[in-house]
Structures are given as structure tokens and as C-alpha cells.
């Protein structure tokens, strides 16, 4: 009933090609954006903004980047953490070397640098695929982290190898990094970046670029026969994906924790993001957000829940319960819907469209 689309006619090609062809979806999207841009900064407390919404957005962007590569182009990668670190350290070097450069340009350039690094490590994908490629990208993960640890030039010879974000404003007094930046500023800035990049990703995957990625993913020989060049397509996927991961790493270092060491982007980070897209749904933009929400928010909720309900449980027990419940839920969702949360949502939508007369 809610999703009944009777009477919604598409009278032009543009309407037919819209991202959200159904009116209800458009209304919901606008509502969500209004809540995200106006409601959340007005109502959410500092704790919510800086420790729940910010990591959620940053992780969503990283998951989005990996989903473009793994979900759409079918190239399994375990180098996400390394690419995020590249973005973080590139942004730091740029911001410190050129203090007058606008922070937005710093982030975009760090994304471009990461894209170049991603292309370099994507080269093996031309010869190997599947699990073997995962191992090759794993090498990039270890190499990049080792490099940032080994050469003090990357941290401007900081004695401890920790980089700390210098204070920067987008315009005027709108500081987004440093101690004078308010959580609301940080949140809004991150939200704008994530929204713009998500919109771009959605359009990329609907264009010929995304379609050629999917062709390569589904059967690369067939794709080659119909005229898709594997070299450009695969490396293009690596470049775009690394661009997203790089910006997400820069956001992590500058906006979320505001100081970071290379260890924060170790192999567990790569796994974490891979789990996000597996649970959220491979090959789905929405799935990246759902997966990030699941992996980031659920542990925080689980560790807060006992105190919320007034139970006085020791902290180590809370942590261990968090691990157990979280693990059980992952298995539960993978059994119920192996194609991820996005698929669950899709099934729900199909049912709603037929409701109350299912056939």
C-alpha cells in the first residue's frame, strides 16, 4: 500500500532514468536528508555527533569505496586499511606543507594520490583474480603501513609517529579540524562530502563505467569479447575505489580522531570494512551504509546497553558479551540473508508494493 506506484507514469527518458523512479522513495530520501542535515545537528548531543555519527559516516565512505571495487568490479581487496592510511598521511603532508591550501582541496588531492597508489597495487589484478588477488592486495596493506612506520618523513619527524591534524577552516570561521572545531561543524562537513561522493558513486555505477565493471565481474572473458578493455576497467575501478578510501582515511585522521598513527589502519581495519560490505550487501550503495551502521553502531550500542538498562555489570564482562552477541548476530544475518542487509530491504520493499494482496 505504501509503495503502490499506480498512476506514476514516466513520460520522458529522463524520468525513466531517475535514481529513484518511485515517488515514495524520493520523498523518503528528501526526508532523510533533511533529518541528517537539520535534525541531527540540532538534536544530537556532542557524544552522538562525535563518537557515533562521525565514525559511521567515515566508515560508510570507506565501505562505499571497497564496494565499488569488490561489489561492482569483482576485485577482492584486503588493502583498504593501507589505502586509508595513504589518504590520511597524504592529507597530513599536504596540509602541513601548504598551510594556505583549503582543506577541501587537501582532501581531494589526498584522494587523487591514493588513487595513484591504488592503481599501482591494482596492477596484479590484470593477471590474477579471486583469492590470489586478495593475497596480492594484502601485500599492499602490509607494505603501506610498514612504509609509514619506517620513514619519519611521512610524520614530519614526529618522535612517536603520530600525526595530528592542524586547525583548518573550510571558509571563514567554519573550522572543521583542530580544537576549535565544533562537533556539529565536523559532522556537517563530513556529511556533505559523504553525500556528494555517494551520489557520484550511484551515478558511476549506473553509467557505462559501472556497467563495464559489472561485466568484468560477472565474466571477464565475455566482457573482453564484447569490447570492454580489462586494463582500463580494472585499473579504473582500483583508482575510483582508492580515491574513496583515501578520502575516508583523511576524514578519519583529520575529523574523527584528529590524531592518528599508522597502526590505526592495520589489517583488522581492512577486514572490518570487508565485513561491512559483506553484511551490508555486495554491489549495493545502500548496503555500504547499512553494513557500516551494523559494524560501527552495534558494538557501541552493546557496550552502552547494560548501563542504559541500569545493570551494574563489570566492564570486562560487557566487552566479552559484546563480542559474543556481535558474533552471533553476524552469523544470524548471514544465515537469514546471505546477500546482505540491502537485499533484506529490497525484499521488504517488494512485499510492501504488493501488500495487502500478495500473490
Amino acid at each position, binding site marked *: 500500500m505504501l509503495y503502490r506506484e499506480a498512476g506514476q507514469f514516466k513520460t520522458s527518458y529522463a524520468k525513466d532514468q531517475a535514481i529513484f523512479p518511485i515517488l515514495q522513495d524520493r520523498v523518503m530520501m528528501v526526508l532523510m536528508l533533511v533529518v541528517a542535515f537539520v535534525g541531527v545537528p540540532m538534536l544530537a548531543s556532542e*557524544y552522538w555527533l562525535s563518537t557515533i555519527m562521525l565514525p559511521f559516516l567515515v566508515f560508510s565512505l570507506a565501505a562505499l569505496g571497497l564496494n565499488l571495487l569488490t561489489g561492482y568490479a569483482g576485485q577482492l581487496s584486503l588493502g583498504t586499511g593501507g589505502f586509508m592510511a595513504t589518504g590520511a598521511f597524504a592529507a597530513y603532508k599536504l596540509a602541513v606543507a601548504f598551510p594556505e591550501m583549503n582543506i577541501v582541496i587537501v582532501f581531494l588531492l589526498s584522494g587523487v594520490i591514493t588513487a595513484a597508489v591504488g592503481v599501482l597495487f591494482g596492477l596484479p589484478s590484470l593477471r590474477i583474480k579471486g583469492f590470489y588477488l586478495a593475497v596480492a592486495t594484502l601485500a599492499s596493506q602490509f607494505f603501506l603501513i610498514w612504509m609509514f612506520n619506517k620513514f619519519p618523513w611521512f610524520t614530519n619527524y614526529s*618522535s*612517536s609517529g603520530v600525526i*595530528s591534524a*592542524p586547525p583548518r577552516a573550510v571558509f571563514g570561521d567554519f573550522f572543521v579540524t*583542530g580544537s576549535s572545531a565544533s562537533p556539529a561543524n565536523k559532522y556537517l562537513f563530513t556529511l556533505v562530502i559523504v553525500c556528494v561522493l555517494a551520489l557520484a558513486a550511484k551515478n558511476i555505477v549506473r553509467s557505462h563505467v559501472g556497467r563495464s565493471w559489472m561485466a568484468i565481474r560477472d565474466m571477464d572473458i565475455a566482457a573482453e569479447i564484447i569490447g570492454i578493455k580489462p586494463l582500463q576497467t580494472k585499473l579504473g575501478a582500483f583508482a575510483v575505489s582508492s580515491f574513496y578510501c583515501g578520502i575516508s582515511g583523511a576524514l578519519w585522521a583529520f575529523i574523527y580522531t*584528529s590524531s*592518528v598513527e599508522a*597502526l590505526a589502519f592495520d589489517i583488522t581495519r581492512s577486514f572490518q570494512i570487508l565485513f561491512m560490505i559483506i553484511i551490508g550487501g555486495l554491489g549495493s550503495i545502500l548496503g555500504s551504509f547499512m553494513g557500516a551502521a551494523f559494524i560501527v553502531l552495534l558494538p557501541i550500542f552493546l557496550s552502552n546497553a547494560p548501563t542504559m538498562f541500569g545493570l551494574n555489570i563489570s566492564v570486562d564482562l560487557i566487552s566479552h558479551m559484546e563480542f559474543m552477541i556481535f558474533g552471533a548476530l553476524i552469523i544470524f544475518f548471514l544465515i537469514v540473508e546471505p546477500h546482505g542487509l540491502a537485499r533484506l530491504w529490497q525484499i521488504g520493499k517488494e512485499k510492501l508494493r504488493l501488500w495487502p494482496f500478495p500473490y
Partner: protein
Amino acid sequence: MRFTKLILAAVGLAVGVSGFAVSEAKAAEQFIPSLVYRTGPYAPNGTPFADGAMDYYKMLNARDGGINGVKLVVEECDTGYNTDRGVECYERLKGKGETGAAAFSPLSTGITYAIIERAAKDKIPVFSMGYGRTDASDGRVFPYVFTAPSTYWSQASALVRYVGSEEGGMANLKGKKIALVYHDSAYGKEPIPTLETLAEKYGFTFHKFPVTHPGLEQKATWLSIGRKLRPDWVFMWGWGVMNQTAIKEAAAVGFPMNKFIGAWWSGAEPDTRPAGKAAIGYKSAAFHSPGSNFIVHQDIFQHVYGKGNGTTTEDLVGEVLYNRGLINSVFVSEAIRTAMSKYGNKAMTGEQIRWGFENLDLTNAKLSKLGLSRFMKPVKITCLNHEGGTPLRIQEWKGQQWEFVSDWIEPMNDIVRPMIEASAAKYAAEKGITPRTCN
């Protein structure tokens, strides 16, 4: 259905064991947050520290009814030594209680780095006791960070001084080889600049051996130390499982234990016990005594464990890391007490406790009043110097317990202090901070 029942039973059991929170309406309560890690790869070291910190507050509440009649309310938050979880814990706890959090001691150099700016903005002191950012000892640039009683840089210089005296004079260090085995993170890298400077000054060669987190794989490291480089001395900046692995591997390549010295975070029972007999003779730095033969421990036995309210078991009271957690609580509670002497006996705000830290003077008389006589050296924190800079001692593992084998060793303040001030000035320039003046 059976599954649901099981979960309900588990939750019920957990609640039953620990009991419900008893919240009574009290006149004044001071909220103290405690960032701990009782889980994860560093839990063997994090747990005794957290226990010691908790027991001291419990003892103050039971014996004196808190500080000057203000009851202490302590809440733990488990970080698992993860920086992002540490930030989450910080944000969760900073506003609790009637006056907000008293002071944060994250027990992780990574988390300390992440909350330094936040804490300065929220006006809450960060008490990183013997870890964290060394150059934060410059109180002009970092008004809200306290590194007392000593820092990694001071510790490195004291270790070199100790090695010099063992070699029969600092001049004999010339041509010697000193290796550093370190946790490849913000924590382990801190002493490197100091050791490099000292290597240049005293003419020894300095070799670095990074160990990646969590440090369970060190075979290659120790083969190249024990068979190839053969250094005269090895220092270790390790934490968690890395320490015991290093001791076992050093023994396996036959490196003499009496030439192997750990930092103060690499010298506790969880590090040496698993290595068995191999660990006998292993040394580490320390700024306080091991053991439970002090009056403060008797008070803890009487007022906390005597009432069945202890955080751990009695035989673990007095372990090295337990005592370190206890000392951490002593500093925080004495800072609160100092703040009360100026602002009155009520719950203090972070800003007032910052003043308390800055005017903290733990003299010998005060230490013995606290039941800590001979436990550690006196410390005085000033506006300029947030470190205090106490001397260190070297302790040795005798197979069952740690014992002091050296006298108190002064750090080389003449070398370390200018480095701290230069580094702090660089930080201030990068962040656009104008250092305040100290009179």
C-alpha cells in the same frame, strides 16, 4: 525458545554476580572516569593496573568516606587498547557526575595523543603517568596534560646512565652497542630521539628493532640481535604479550638476561612469570617499589578486602602493575585534595583539578602520611614542569618477585629538558598555540 531462555539465564547470572547499582542520594560526589582494558591482547597488563587503581579509590571511600567528605564515584570503560574505542569512552564519560570527569588516565599512548586536544577544549586534565606525549611535560604549551612522575625520554636517559655506571663510567660507553627492541607504535617510538642524541654524545652505537603489534612473532628480531649484532645491552619498550615473548626469545638465542633492561611498562609479573626460569636476572626500570609491605596496602587489606569488596584476589595485591595503578589513583586523588584546599570541600571541576595537579607537591612527609613512605621519591609539579622528574631505580626479577638492584638514578634533565621544550614549541607552532607564561 531454549536459546532465549539461555540468554536470559546468562544475563540473570551476570546481574546476580555483580549486583545492582546502588544509587543513593548523596550531598557531594566526585566523578572519576577510569579507562581500562580488561580485554584484548594487552589485558594481562591492563587488568592489574585497573584493579590497583580501583582498590585505592574503594579504600578511600571505605576508610575516609572519600576525600574530605566528598565520596568518589568511579566508572570504568573498557577500551581494549584501541584508540577509537578510547575516544568513544572519553566522550561517554567526560560529562558524567555533577561536575564532569575529574581526570583521564587512558593508559595508552595512542589514546593519550587522541584526547589531548579534546581534553584541553573540555577543560579536563589528562594524567598520563609515565606514558603518552613526552613533550607535554612543558606546561606552557600543554596546560591540561600531566606526565608526572617521569617520562620516556627521562627514562631512556636514566637507563643510559645506569648502563654507564655498570660499565664503570660514562666514558666507557664509547664503542659499545645498545639495541632497542620496541613496540612499533606511538608508545615504542617515543624514546628513540633521546637515545639517538645520547648515542652521539657518549659515542655508543644505537640499533633499532621494531616489533609489530601484538608482538607474538620475534624470532627473526632476536636471531639478528643474538647471533648477528651481539649488542652489549638491550633496552625494551614493550607492552602486553610482547614482553614475555621477548624474554623467551632472548633466552632462546642465549642473550644474557642481566644485560637486558625493560622500560617500566616491561617489568611486571605477567611479563616474567610465563617465561619461567629463563626470566631470572631480567631487569627493568621502575619509579616505585614492588610488594605489599606498605601501610597503604594494609589499609586496602583491612578496609576493602576485609569487607569482601576487593577488585581482585588478595595475593595479587602488591604486584608491580597493581602498585602502579594504585599510584595513579594516589596522584589523581591528591590533585583533587590539593584543589579542595583552594576551592573548598565540594565536588571539583576539571579546571579546578588542573590547578590541583599543577600545585601538587608530594613531599616525603605527605607520602608517609598516605602510607607510602619509602614507596617512591617525592614529586613536585609546577606550572612550567608537568613532569616533576623523579629519579628511577632498576629492579631485577628473582624468579618469584621483583627486587631493587640499584640505587635511585637521576635522569639527565640537562639534555632531556631542552629537547622537551623544543618539541613542545614545534607543536605550538604547528597548532597555532600561544604558550602561556609561568610565573
